[in-house]
């Protein structure tokens, strides 16, 4: 069946082009893109079903490189079905899942489990990542080749830092052998006492800190290893300005690195921790306002090519604790676009850069087709309502998580429609 989405402003983040028109697809592949004014459908052949975007913005669907769906092992926080529903509602068609579950994804069987659970939910393409080390022990290689065969698309140790640099080098070499890119988080734990940014705010709050230097030291190590091994490496969840400078330099020298920032680090700064509200306990920590501004600049200039949700659902009982004892992280996958739109409306980020970092950047890293709206591309699309004013309530969310710092806040804009290979996987009612 042919379908055509009409009455939309099309944004192609790969080229930066923006125009009013329509997109038509058949069997999940785009077969026609054309221009048509607002409210117009263009010339329609018989038998084509029309879907109206109601004057909203059409873009390629979002792809996430860092999300936790908590299954197997922590289903009380989220599972693959609820996480998939949340992701589809956020405009995502592809989500790379953290493998540090229980059991962790370190062999064929767990990879199959994740893929089957994702297929059963049937809303997003669940992309399993595999652990670098067996049982996350940090010192013995996981069966990376078998996992690659079973469908793993990248290697990742969750938020863990591999203390043994020599072991990490071997992981990168061995993983590259099977064409699997590596995603690394960046914090040298020997430089860390706590979880908030070290600065004037921590001098006032007395909370224990994770200083920027802990990230910078790790980023420098990971760049050096990427340069040595030539393994495709993604530095995930960058939070400090000095790390951005290191990455910029590495990219200029042709080191095979890409980088992401978590959505929260673009929105929050360290003053958010002054009330000791554990909802604001995130990792990497929200750093200074200066860091936040430089992260936004890095997204605009492409040094940071990807924005990740770092979706980390937690239950109430994990969060309703003293700040030091509370779980880290916030749910986010349904809020990425509303939060990005907030930055766009505040003129801190332009729309094209924002969309590019959730569509083109992650696709290029994983080698997924799409990311541009053109004939022959998969019909993985999202329709974004940029005008509706709404208030965040847990009843609005599909995630099982109960942890967002933005509860009760008003947002402008949200996903209206998500299309996965030509199939509508999310439609906002009313």
């Amino acid at each position, binding site marked *: 069946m042919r379908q055509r989405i009409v009455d939309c402003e099309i944004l192609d983040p790969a080229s930066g082009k923006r125009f009013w028109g329509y997109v038509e697809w058949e069997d999940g592949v785009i077969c026609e893109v054309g221009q048509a004014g607002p409210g117009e459908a263009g010339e329609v052949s018989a038998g084509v079903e029309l879907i109206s975007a109601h004057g909203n913005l059409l873009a390629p669907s979002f792809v996430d490189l860092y999300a936790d769906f908590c299954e197997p092992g922590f289903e009380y926080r989220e599972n693959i079905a609820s996480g998939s529903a949340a992701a589809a509602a956020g405009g995502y068609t592809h989500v790379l899942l953290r493998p540090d579950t229980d059991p962790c994804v370190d062999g064929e069987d767990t990879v199959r489990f994740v893929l089957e659970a994702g297929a059963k939910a049937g809303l997003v393409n669940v992309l399993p990542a595999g652990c670098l080390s067996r049982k996350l022990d940090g010192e013995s290689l996981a069966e990376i080749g078998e996992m690659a065969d079973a469908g793993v698309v990248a290697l990742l140790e969750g938020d863990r830092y591999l203390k043994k640099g020599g072991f990490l080098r071997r992981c990168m070499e061995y993983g590259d052998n099977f064409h699997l890119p590596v995603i690394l988080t960046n914090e040298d734990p020997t430089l860390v006492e706590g979880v908030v940014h070290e600065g004037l705010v*921590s*001098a006032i709050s007395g909370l224990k800190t994770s200083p920027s230097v802990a990230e910078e030291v790790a980023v420098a190590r990971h760049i050096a290893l990427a340069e040595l091994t030539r393994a495709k490496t993604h530095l995930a969840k960058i939070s400090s300005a000095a790390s951005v400078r290191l990455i910029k330099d590495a990219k200029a020298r042709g080191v095979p690195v890409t980088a992401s920032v978590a959505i929260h680090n673009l929105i929050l700064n360290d003053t958010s921790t002054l009330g*000791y509200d554990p909802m604001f306990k995130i990792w990497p920590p929200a750093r200074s306002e200066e860091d936040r501004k430089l992260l936004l600049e890095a997204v605009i200039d492409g040094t940071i090519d990807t924005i990740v949700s770092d979706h980390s659902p937690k239950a109430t009982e994990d969060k309703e604790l003293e700040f030091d004892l509370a779980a880290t992280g916030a749910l986010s996958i349904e809020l990425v676009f509303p939060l990005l739109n907030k930055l766009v409306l505040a003129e801190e980020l332009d729309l094209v850069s924002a969309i590019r970092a959730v569509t083109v950047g992650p696709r290029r890293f994983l080698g997924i087709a799409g990311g541009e709206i053109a004939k022959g591309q998969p019909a993985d699309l999202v329709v974004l309502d940029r005008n509706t004013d709404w208030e965040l309530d847990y009843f609005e969310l599909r995630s099982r998580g109960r942890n967002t710092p933005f509860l009760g806040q008003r947002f402008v804009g949200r996903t209206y429609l998500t299309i996965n290979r030509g199939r509508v996987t999310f439609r906002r009612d009313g």
Partner: protein
Amino acid sequence: MATHINHLLDLEGLSKEEITSYLDLGEHFKGVSQRRIKKVPTLRHITVVLFFIENSTRTKISFEIAAKRMSADTLSFAASSSSLAKGETLLDTAKTLMAMRPDIIVIRHFAAGAPHFLARNVPAAIINAGDGGHAHPTQALLDMFTMREHLGKIEGLEVAIIGDIGHSRVARSNIHGLSTMGANIRVAGPRTFLPPHFNTLGVQVYDRIEPAIEGADVVMMLRIQKERMGKDLFPSDREYARFFGLDAQKLKLAKPGALVMHPGPLNRGVEITPDIADCNNSVILEQVENGVAIRMAVLYQLGKHLVEEA
């Protein structure tokens, strides 16, 4: 939920007038402790829970005596003997306590911000008796009380605070309180004790004790946490005493008659030599006495309207 209730969570944001009123009240209640009958009926009907998740002897006793001298009913609750040791969360323990309808909860906790967490979640007046590395507001109030009592004012005083500033809630609360009251603050210690950014709080930072003490009206020594010794912050108590401890010779740099203070408990021979701890300039035991007066003042300030309502 409990926004209309007054708390004492920290000194950040307290005005000069508010701090002064605590000090004035403290003066009044110090008189009570010096009478033959050391008890007033002011807080009869009020229940005060001493909720001490982190060990403390002197602060707890001080609050307990203060509450008893105000005729409040007190109830002690320590972490080791409580359901917290069995894995109950702070919130559930606090809610259980609330079901017994206390009016004021005095909390000591190892985690910064725990009193704020309680204040958001339970309908009682919360007094912070020390939260991790964050604040110890009644200690700072009693320190300022002692300074004012001896030196007649706080504004314009040169106050040197020496020791592990970075990890000290006493230092943080004193920095906020003293700067609001118009004193000039110098902090000193080895660099490992002085995280960056303290200078932006409006204090002078020194990595040697001598220039910090020079010309000071008050020299406040902080307690060294011996468990940190020999690890990453300082190598030995011997070396600490030599470079950063207060002795007679270093004290000569201060103004004649400068006050020597210490929040206790003392490590004699480490941060302070025994002769200096016991010298005429030392007001360390007066700090303890004034602690009771200030805590009576704080309990009164937070509890008085509860009595009026009753």
